[in-house]
């Protein structure tokens, strides 16, 4: 009698101990380490919160970091390791090249992947297992260009972009948008290398093209280096950038050189959105500085996995996929979600509010302040208007 009950008991114990595993395939070392650090901190917070609140459908969340060394081939092997470990979902990577490399692995394994990358190609590969944690570069650049063309009316627009999938994708997007919507083109465009310390050549190209406005799609450090050198030579052009150029790291490193730069960002710490404000306050109190939007993205990755499972009411991955497409997620559905109103379309592309911000140097630190809130192009909020942030 006792022996025959053993399997029942052991099955019950096994179920209680079973955990929801999330593999964090992230840039823990290498060129992207400073960004990966935000995701690691975000996971520590989010997973702690979720587990304290009872986990996901009764299961505690467990995560493991799989360092991709900021390299595409290592992203592939790191993802494979995470899948072997038993990950229900993969979070990361951040660099677009790394995501493009490892997406086929999660697709083949039919495993959800919450990526931090912004390259426009990612959600157009026919991969139903990928979700973006921030608006893609097509939307971001379009929103930025719409504002620049309407408000600044540039006579000559130039562009600098980082020479990787993130930057080249942005350049392709900008060229296409300028031609199709504004019937114009860039007067100059130059690719910059990662960690490049000198921008003399790029500044020369800007000067000889007479560009009065320069669109930047560089990484955080590179943006700061460019601003510093641009200030050294007294560059007059109006500078506008995607989120990396007005990020916390770009402002921290660029300091007074970032003063006056405008940019778009989804998870701006100054955004008038309760989730952003809550996380910004937490991070400021815990680490003494403002969080980068990578922190918000990493945080949301955990809660989106939770949301998908709760909407599916099971740990079935195909039901997760079904529920997480063409879905509108708000704090009513997932109280801790950051961003307020997130709409995921049929491709896993995120449509949410972005903010146009301006960086101001106050003598001690360079701070980005949200000026306008720009609605998404798709989803329930798409019919709303841009409004001034008070």
């Amino acid at each position: 009698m006792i022996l025959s009950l053993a399997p029942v008991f052991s099955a019950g114990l096994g179920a209680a101990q079973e955990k929801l595993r999330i593999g964090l395939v992230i840039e823990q070392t290498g060129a992207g380490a400073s960004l990966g650090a935000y995701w690691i901190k975000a996971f520590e917070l989010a997973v702690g919160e979720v587990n304290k609140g009872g986990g996901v459908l009764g299961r505690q969340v467990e995560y493991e970091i799989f360092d991709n060394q900021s390299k595409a081939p290592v992203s592939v092997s790191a993802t494979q390791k995470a899948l072997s470990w038993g990950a229900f979902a993969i979070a990361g990577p951040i660099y677009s090249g790394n995501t493009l490399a490892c997406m086929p692995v999660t697709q083949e394994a039919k495993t959800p992947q919450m990526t931090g990358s912004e390259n426009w190609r990612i959600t157009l590969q026919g991969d139903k297992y990928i979700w973006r944690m921030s608006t893609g570069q097509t939307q971001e650049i379009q929103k930025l260009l719409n504002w620049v063309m309407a408000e600044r009316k540039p006579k000559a627009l130039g562009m600098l972009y980082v020479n990787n999938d993130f930057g080249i994708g942005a350049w392709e997007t900008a060229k296409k948008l300028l031609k199709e919507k504004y019937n114009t083109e860039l007067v100059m465009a130059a690719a910059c290398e990662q960690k490049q310390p000198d921008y003399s050549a790029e500044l020369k190209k800007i000067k000889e093209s007479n560009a009065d406005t320069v669109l930047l799609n560089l990484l955080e450090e590179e943006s700061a280096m460019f601003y510093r050198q641009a200030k050294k030579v007294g560059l007059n052009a109006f500078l506008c950038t995607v989120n990396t150029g007005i990020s916390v790291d770009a402002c921290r490193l660029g300091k007074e050189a970032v003063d006056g730069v405008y940019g778009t960002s989804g998870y701006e710490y100054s955004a008038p959105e309760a989730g952003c404000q809550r996380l910004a306050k937490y991070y400021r109190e815990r680490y003494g500085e403002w969080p980068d939007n990578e922190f918000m993205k990493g945080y949301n990755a955990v809660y989106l996995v939770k949301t998908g499972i709760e909407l599916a009411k099971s740990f079935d991955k195909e039901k997760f996929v079904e529920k997480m497409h063409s879905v509108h997620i708000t704090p009513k559905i997932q109280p801790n979600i950051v961003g307020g109103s997130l709409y995921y379309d049929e491709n896993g592309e995120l449509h949410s509010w972005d903010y146009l911000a301006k960086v101001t140097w106050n003598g001690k630190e360079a701070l980005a302040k949200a000026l306008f809130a720009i609605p998404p192009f798709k989803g329930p909020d798409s019919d709303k208007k841009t409004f001034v942030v008070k």
Partner: protein
Amino acid sequence: MTDLIQLLIGGLSIGILYSIVAIGFVLLWQTSQTINFAQGEFVMVPMFVMVGLHIVLKLPFWLSFLLTILASSLMGYLFEKLMIKRLLAGGVIVIVIATLGLSAFLRYGMQITWTPLTLFFPHIFSTEPIKIRNVVFSSEDIWNIVIISIIILLLHLFIKRTKLGKAMQAVAQSRETATLMGINVMQIITLVFVLNSILTGIGAIFVAPVFFVRYDVGVQLGLKAFIAAVIGGFNQIRGALAGGITVGLVETLAAAYISTAYRDAFTMILLLLILLIKPEGIAGIREEAY
């Protein structure tokens, strides 16, 4: 013309930074037949020490600088005593492998013990633009070029004109003969390693405002400096200067006039050409094979 002058200033100011790191390769090769592939990290570590002293502990700049040089010298001394001295007999390959390991150890050690984030380092000189007849530059660029050039020149004079410098040259040419001449070869080698670390410590404060302070900055710097040393001439101090300036100018001018996307490729092409045509380097001396 003004654009060209501006590009030359930009290329020179970056190239001079490569030079001061490249000197270490030349010095160590000359005196001990050692190639230190942790040379970039020997610049990175003093950068972090400077940040710790000047920015975190808020010590005055001059005191932070002196303490950083002391710490850097100690690092060089320990490197020679604990690693090089024990491996010297094993030959160049052994030392190359060991220093590659040391490079990774220092890099990831700094990342784990301090931070993976990039840290800010203040400009030492003013960065306000100076305009002379439409050429715009900053005094930081000019000061970097002038001061580092003077340092390299003083080092050159030290090696050529002083007794100690001549002893270093003697050790570089033949350790056995130097020993017979009464020179304490091991002491000279130790001195050279300490001198290298002093130079990398000094280099760190010029490099930090431009490259920022991060745990993996040594990889990029070390590689560029190594290429500069090969291009310039691995067996002459002036080779490090010539090589660094050449690399800086080639990068900048190629990016400006050909393509920004392939700036590093042009440096590699130049490296290949030099190895094929003038393997001793632009300012190096051809050595006869025995």
